[in-house]
Structures are given as C-alpha cells and as structure tokens.
C-alpha cells in the first residue's frame, strides 16, 4: 500500500540551530501539505503545494520557516533558527487533486517528524 514517507522520525536540536524535514508523497499526488501539531491540539496547516507551486502559506512563519517542492514531487520544510516553541509534530500529507471531493481528495498523512527544541 502506498504511503507518505517522512524523515527523520525524531529530531532533537538546540535553540537557534537549523533543522530540515523531508517528505515524499504518494506517487502521483499533486497536492502536498505540511501541518504542525502541537501536543493536545489538532494539526494546523503551515503550507500547501499544488505541484511545485505554493497555494497557501498564510500560516507559515516566514521569518524562520521555508518550504520547497522544486520538482513537484518530494518536499523539504526548514526552520532556521529553531525556537523552543517550535517543538511539535510536523506532519506531511498528500492528496490526488487540489479540489476537495469525497472520492478523490482524502488527505493521506505520513507518520510525522517529532521535533524537540532544547
């Protein structure tokens, strides 16, 4: 069964360091999402890509976060510098079309990267 791959699974870093997370969506899925989930909360969107283009990055803290999907396949999310408040689970999801429909746009999530900033 096809899965969304994320790495690393866990990352511990010190404040002010740079960190990067990688996501490989399900093959053929044009839409890719990065969500952040703080403990006790639901996932919240950071950025959405349609192929290689950013569709929504209104909630991405652009002073320290950046995301790219250069060839419209895999994606990297970077934080520089990391802050204590960035400790969270970073989830990547993909779907087969940018338009939500019951049959076609279910979002499939990876296992996530748990970031701890010390």
């Amino acid at each position, binding site marked *: 069964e096809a899965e969304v791959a994320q790495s690393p699974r866990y990352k511990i870093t010190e404040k002010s360091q740079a960190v990067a997370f990688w996501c490989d969506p399900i093959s053929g899925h044009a839409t890719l999402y990065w969500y952040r989930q703080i403990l*006790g909360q*639901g996932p919240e*969107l950071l950025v*959405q890509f349609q192929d290689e283009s950013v*569709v929504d990055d209104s909630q991405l803290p652009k002073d320290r976060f950046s995301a790219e999907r250069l060839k419209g396949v895999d994606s990297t999310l970077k934080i520089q510098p990391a802050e204590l408040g960035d400790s969270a689970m970073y989830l990547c999801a993909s779907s087969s079309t940018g338009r*939500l429909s019951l049959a076609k*746009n279910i979002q499939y999530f990876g296992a996530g990267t748990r970031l701890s900033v010390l």
Partner: protein
Amino acid sequence: DQQVKQNSPSLSVQEGRISILNCDYTNSMFDYFLWYKKYPAEGPTFLISISSIKDKNEDGRFTVFLNKSAKHLSLHIVPSQPGDSAVYFCAASEPGRAGTALIFGKGTTLSVSS
C-alpha cells in the same frame, strides 16, 4: 477562535457498546466534514466523511451524522472494539479558500475496554 471544536477530550466505553464522538463548528461555509483516527507514533488515518448536503453517511461500524442547523456532527461506532482506542479528529473544509487544507479540532481520545 476555534472553528472546529471537540469539547470532550476523552471518552471511555466498554467493548461492544456504542461510542459517540461529538464535534461542533462555527463556520456555516464548511462544505465537507471528515473524521480521522490517530494511533500513537502514527499519522492520522482517514476514517469517514460527509458532505454538507447530506445528514448521514455510513461505512460498516462507523456512521457520521450531520445537523447543519445546530452546526454539529457526531461519529457513532457500533459495536466498539478495543482496536478502536485512538485519538479521533474532526476536520472540516471550506470552499473558496486559497487552498484546500483541513481545519481540525483538538481531538477526542477514545478508550475501549474489554
């Protein structure tokens, strides 16, 4: 302000009984609602969804009910099984936004005891 609310952080049910998980929303423009299940150390997994033009959708042991006038939906699991123990997230989608990202509630932890 939270647009999707799951006011019960946890629910405990005995095996074989019905589990009812509730979700309220404030945005009348939401057009789809979805339920996701999340086990520890795994990503959320899609469970069931419903369009805003429907009031019920059923898939095996899982049924979602939508009451648009009350801006309320619920997920019924019958019969509950120990393997259903997980965190359940209610999510909604709004047409016309720049993207199609989902807006999630905080989740409800379901514990099913045998």
